[in-house]
C-alpha cells in the first residue's frame, strides 16, 4: 500500500520546550489513523506542521509522496477544534472563499451544504450560527473538493453523546468511501472504536505505532490471594501461561496469556492443599493500558 503521509524526525521546539521531538509516522492509504496522546502531548502542534501553519524546527514530512508543496493541502479536508470563518460573511460566501482557494467548482457548495443540513441557512451570516452549526459548516468546508484525506483534531470535543455518535458514524462512512482519515484524540475509547491504526505520543515522543489490534488489545489478568502470598508466588513459578507475576500488597496480579483457565489454576492449588481466599479473572482495561503506555 502506498503511504499518504510520511514524517521523518519531525521536530518542533519552542525555546527549551520540545513540543514535538522527532516523530516518524507513516499513514497508509485507506486507513483510519489515530494519533493518541494526553492533552499537551504535541498532537495539535504536529497537525499544525502537517498543515503548513507551524514551521517545523527540523525534520520533514511528505504528503502523497510529493513533499511539502502547498498544493497538497488542497487534497486534505481539515476539521480542527475550532471552526474559523469570516463572521460577517454568509455560510455560502465563506465556502466560496474556500472553493476559490482550493480551485473547486462553486457548484459543489450547495451539495456539501445540504450534506450537513445547512442549505436553508446558507444566506445567513456565519456569526448568527450556533456552535453546532459552525461545526457543520466546517465539516461542509472540509468535504469541499472531495478530498483524499480528512484530518480531524479532537472532533468530538464539547459535543453531547448524540453529537459524538454522529461524528463517529461520519468517520466510518467517510472511511467506507475509501478516504484516508487522520484523527487526533486524547480519548482512548474513541481511537479504539474508529481507528485501524494508531500512534501513541507523549510529550512529543512517539511511544508506539501499529494497528489498533496489536497495540490496544486488552490483556488477560488474574488476581489471587491467600494466607501466604509469598508461598503462593513460589508455586506459580513454573505454571504454564503466566507471563508475569506481580506481588501486590493484598494479592498477586498475574499477567496471563489468552485462553488462560482460572478454574485449572484453582484446582492446581487445591491439589496442593492450598486454598485461595480470592480469585478474579478479568480483562485489563484499555485505560490502564493507555496510562501504562504514557506513564513516566
Amino acid at each position, binding site marked *: 500500500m502506498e503511504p499518504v503521509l510520511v514524517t521523518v524526525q519531525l521536530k518542533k521546539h519552542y525555546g527549551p520546550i520540545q513540543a514535538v521531538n522527532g516523530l516518524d509516522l507513516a499513514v497508509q492509504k485507506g486507513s483510519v489513523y489515530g494519533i493518541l496522546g494526553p492533552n499537551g502531548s504535541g498532537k495539535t502542534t504536529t497537525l*499544525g506542521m502537517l*498543515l*503548513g*501553519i*507551524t*514551521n517545523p524546527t527540523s525534520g520533514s514530512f511528505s504528503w502523497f509522496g510529493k513533499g511539502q508543496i*502547498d*498544493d497538497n*493541502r*488542497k487534497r486534505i479536508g*481539515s476539521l*480542527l477544534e*475550532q471552526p*474559523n*470563518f*469570516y*463572521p*460577517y*460573511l*454568509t455560510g455560502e*460566501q465563506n465556502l*466560496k*472563499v*474556500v472553493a*476559490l*482557494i*482550493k*480551485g473547486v467548482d462553486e457548484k459543489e457548495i450547495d451539495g456539501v451544504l445540504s450534506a450537513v443540513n445547512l442549505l436553508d441557512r446558507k444566506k445567513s451570516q456565519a456569526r448568527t450560527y450556533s456552535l453546532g452549526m459552525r461545526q457543520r459548516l466546517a465539516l461542509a*468546508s472540509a468535504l469541499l473538493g472531495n478530498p483524499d484525506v480528512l484530518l480531524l483534531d479532537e472532533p468530538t470535543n464539547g459535543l453531547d453523546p448524540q453529537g459524538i455518535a454522529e461524528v463517529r458514524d461520519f468517520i466510518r462512512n467517510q472511511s467506507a468511501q475509501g478516504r484516508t482519515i487522520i484523527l487526533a484524540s486524547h480519548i482512548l475509547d474513541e481511537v479504539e472504536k474508529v481507528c485501524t491504526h494508531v500512534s501513541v505520543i507523549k510529550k512529543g515522543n512517539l511511544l508506539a505505532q501499529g494497528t489498533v489490534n496489536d497495540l490496544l488489545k486488552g490483556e488477560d489478568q488474574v488476581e489471587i490471594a491467600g494466607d501466604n502470598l509469598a508461598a503462593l508466588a513460589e508455586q506459580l513459578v513454573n505454571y504454564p501461561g503466566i507471563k508475569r507475576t506481580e506481588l501486590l500488597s493484598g494479592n498477586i496480579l498475574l499477567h496471563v496469556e489468552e485462553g488462560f483457565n482460572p478454574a485449572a489454576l484453582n484446582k492446581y492449588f487445591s491439589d496442593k492443599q492450598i486454598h485461595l481466599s480470592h480469585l478474579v479473572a478479568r480483562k485489563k482495561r484499555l485505560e490502564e493500558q493507555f496510562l501504562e503506555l504514557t506513564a513516566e
Partner: protein
Amino acid sequence: MLRLLRIELLKLIPYRTFKILFLIYLLLMVLWLVGGKGIANTLGLTPEQVLGYPNIWNYYTLYACYFNIILTILIIFITGNEYTYRTLRQNIIDGLQRTETVQAKVLLIITLSIISTIVLTISGVIGGLIYSADADKGRMLEHGGFIFGYFIQSLGMMSMGLFFGTLFKRTGLAVIIFLIFLFPVDVILRAGILPDGSGDYMPVATYFLKIVPFPLDHVMSHGEEPTASAPTMLSLGVGFAYAVLFAGISWMITKKRDL
C-alpha cells in the same frame, strides 16, 4: 493573480466596516470640493486660484493624502481581522501559500489605489471645470504629475497599513500604534532627535510633505504661479521604495511566523 484578487474582493465587499470607511472617504473627497471656497479663504486666495486648473491638482492631492489615512486604517482592519478571526490560518490550511496571502493583500492595495486615484481624477476634473477661470479651462491636466504622486502615496500608506496590521495582529492595537507613528513619533524624531534635514525622507514625512508639498510660494505670493508643478523624482522614488519595503517586511513576517 486574478484568483487572489477575487478572493480578497469576496471577503471585502460584504464587510460593513469597509462600506462605511469607503463612504466616509468618498464624502471627504466631495466635501473638499464643496467647501473649497472656505479653504481658499483661509489661505488668502481666491477659489479659482486653489480649485481651478492647474493648481487644483496640487491642493486637492495635498488634502486627499490625509483622507488616505482612512483607507490605511481599513487595510489595518482587514489584515488584523485575518489574525483575530484566525482565517489567515484557515486560508493556509485550505491550501493558500503564505506568499499568496500577502500577494492577495498587495493586489487589493494596488486595486484600491487605482480606484482612489480614479476618484480623485474624476472629481478633480469636475471641480476644476466648475471653479476654473475661463482662461485656465484648457490647462486641465497641467500639474497632473501630482495625480501620480497621489497614487504612489496611496500605495505607500496602505502598504504601511499592511505592515502594522501584520506586525501587531490585533486591529485596535495596530491602529493606535499606527496613529502614534503617524503623528508624534515622526515629528519628534524629525524635529527633536535627528540632525536637521536628515529626517526629511522618513516615511511619514515623505508621504505627507515631500511627494505633494504644500505650495508655500503660491500662498505667500497671493497667487503667483507656484514653482513646483509635479512631485520630484526623488520623493516618488523614496515613496515607492517604502511601499515595497513595508510589503516586503510583511511578507517576511508572514513567511516566518507560526500561525
